[in-house]
């Protein structure tokens, strides 16, 4: 926040899946964004829009075979995509860490929590397990796990879902990374725990100045947490804005669809939940049209014939031929 240089700068990131004898599939198709220290950035979109692939590409965790990654991911002056796999391994967990969706399957079932937390510190901070153990205890306490001494010896199956996600957050924070990527960290948790975990993430970001990339399909999560929101559709960002503007005046029909499909308590009884018709399977190619056109309520003839260009305005951005100005009271 003090400096204007972004902590992480993603430029024109492209990920292409190539399968033998099949058309290459562009999972991420020219995504660019900046993350500043202490900022929380949301990547929003429905399943299959390229959110998770983007995060895995940033981490260098996509399988080497069958994937082609292009573009630049600049972190502290170096392009992460150009690093060797061992250099990238040194950075993962130390500079950039990631929290995954399912806390149970993301923990090793046969290793006690304490050892899983200390492992990261042994790896990146040259601590012995003995030196790291008290730090692990502090970390568990910090993320709100009661009775951390006992939990250090527990196995993942002995912890509740919320505790497991807290343990995972403790592991990712063990080396005080500058950037945290959270890939749907609350999807596998029930609603009350979701709120607790989000509050914890928010508190940690504010206390440590860590930047957070929040990947989610849940606009409620975005509303509570993110400073800037990027809406992704079929591998491209279709709308960007800070959360207040986006929720008040979203312009892209897809963003409107997402906002409209949030169930509302004040809706009259018996009213059907709204959804966006069709699925990502209906997409048109971006190269000659707007991918969202087949599902778009505001579609024009032009949308099927011409690629909408990215229009950058101060603090906002939009990719649409026929944007709407809708007010969400």
């Amino acid at each position, binding site marked *: 926040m003090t400096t204007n240089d972004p902590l992480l700068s993603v430029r024109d990131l492209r990920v292409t899946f190539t399968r033998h004898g099949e058309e290459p599939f562009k999972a991420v198709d020219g995504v660019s964004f900046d993350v500043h220290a202490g900022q929380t950035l949301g990547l929003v979109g429905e399943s299959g829009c390229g959110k998770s692939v983007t995060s895995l590409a940033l*981490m260098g*965790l996509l399988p080497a075979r069958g994937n082609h990654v292009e573009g630049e991911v600049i972190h502290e002056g170096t392009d992460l995509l150009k690093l060797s796999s061992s250099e990238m*391994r*040194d*950075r*993962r*967990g*130390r500079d950039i*860490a*990631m929290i*995954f969706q*399912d806390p*149970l*399957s*993301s*923990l*090793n*079932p*046969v*290793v006690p929590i304490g050892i899983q937390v200390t*492992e*990261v510190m042994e*790896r*990146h901070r040259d601590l012995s397990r003995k030196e790291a153990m008290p730090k692990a205890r502090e970390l568990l306490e910090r993320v709100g796990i009661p009775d951390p001494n006992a939990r250090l010896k527990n*196995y*993942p*199956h002995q912890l509740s879902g919320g505790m497991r996600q807290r343990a*995972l957050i403790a*592991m*990712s924070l*063990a080396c005080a990374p500058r950037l945290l990527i959270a890939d749907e960290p609350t999807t596998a948790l029930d609603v009350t725990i979701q709120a607790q975990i989000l509050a914890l993430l928010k508190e940690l970001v504010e206390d440590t100045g860590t930047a957070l990339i929040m990947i989610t399909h849940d606009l409620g999560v975005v509303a509570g947490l993110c400073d800037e929101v990027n809406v992704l559709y079929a591998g491209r960002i279709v709308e960007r804005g800070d959360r207040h503007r986006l929720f008040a005046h979203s312009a892209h029909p897809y963003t409107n669809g997402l906002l409209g499909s949030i169930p509302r308590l004040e809706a009259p009884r018996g009213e059907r939940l709204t959804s966006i018709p069709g699925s990502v399977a209906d997409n048109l190619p971006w190269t000659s049209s707007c991918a969202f056109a087949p599902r778009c309520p505001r579609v024009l003839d032009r949308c099927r014939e011409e690629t909408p260009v990215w229009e950058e305005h101060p603090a906002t951005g939009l990719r649409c031929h026929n944007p709407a100005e809708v007010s969400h009271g």
Partner: protein
Amino acid sequence: MTDQQGTENPSTKRGLSYGERRKQRIDELAAASVDETPGVSLYASAWRRLRRNPVFLIGAGITVLFVILAVISPWLAPWDPAATPLLDKVRPQSNPIPGPEPGHPLGGDDRGRDLLSRLLVGSQQTLIVGVMATLFGLVGGITLGTLAGALGGWVDSVIMRMVDVLLSIPSLLLAISIAALAQKPSQWTVIIAIAVIQVPIFARLLRGSLLGQRVSDHVLAARALGVKRGAIVFRHMLPNALGPVIVQATLVLATAIIDAAALSFLGVGNSDDRRPEWGQMLARAQPFIYDHPHLAIYPAACIITVALGFTLMGESLREALDPKSRR
């Protein structure tokens, strides 16, 4: 056309070759371990169900009894298995096999040695050969399987093609060929021969189970924390992949005992008959099979019972740890 259907549908295994069928069986076992839902501790819930499973109790009972007998047999056996207390009762023309009498409840063999003592002490050889062979097989299989599953690439291809070749040869035939290479047959020949035929089974099973681990969420999470490759393989993948291999080892132990008996029967095993072994006793009983079948029946029954015990135990273990059969 029919051939294609055969390979596509795993339920019609008739069209497949011997090696293909074995590979498929091993791969099914490996796949069963992958999609486990570790809500409750897998081993705790498996044990809870095993305790009430009569099949497991019978198998484990036989196994435990056999192991205890084998360990204490030198003290339990009333006679030295090499001594010939009944030698003066042997009449090569009229009565080659001494019958039961006080002090010799099962009678003697053609050299006047006490049959009961030989059966009891024979259990020791069976246990040693079975356990040692399976242990060596496990070590070899785990080494090769870990190399293949952890390194991938050409190492994986080379190892797995070698394993496929070994699997395509009927195992007993392979064991006999290996044992026949030895200059002087001994129990070590049998142990090594049986270990070699077990290596490909364990290697393929472990590799399959490691491949499942490699794409699992917790390995991805460990990689996202920058954990080094060695630690990922030995701390995060191997301990989670070993389950089906250990279970398979109890089943393979049963096969090892039968194969060991078969090899000694065929004369490629321990030729020193002062140290009794069930397969070797079977072979010695051959000339007397019509007039004195009990000489063959006793060791055969021992082999069958022990192999059955290990099979029942291993089979129920596998079932209990198989997430598909869990409810």
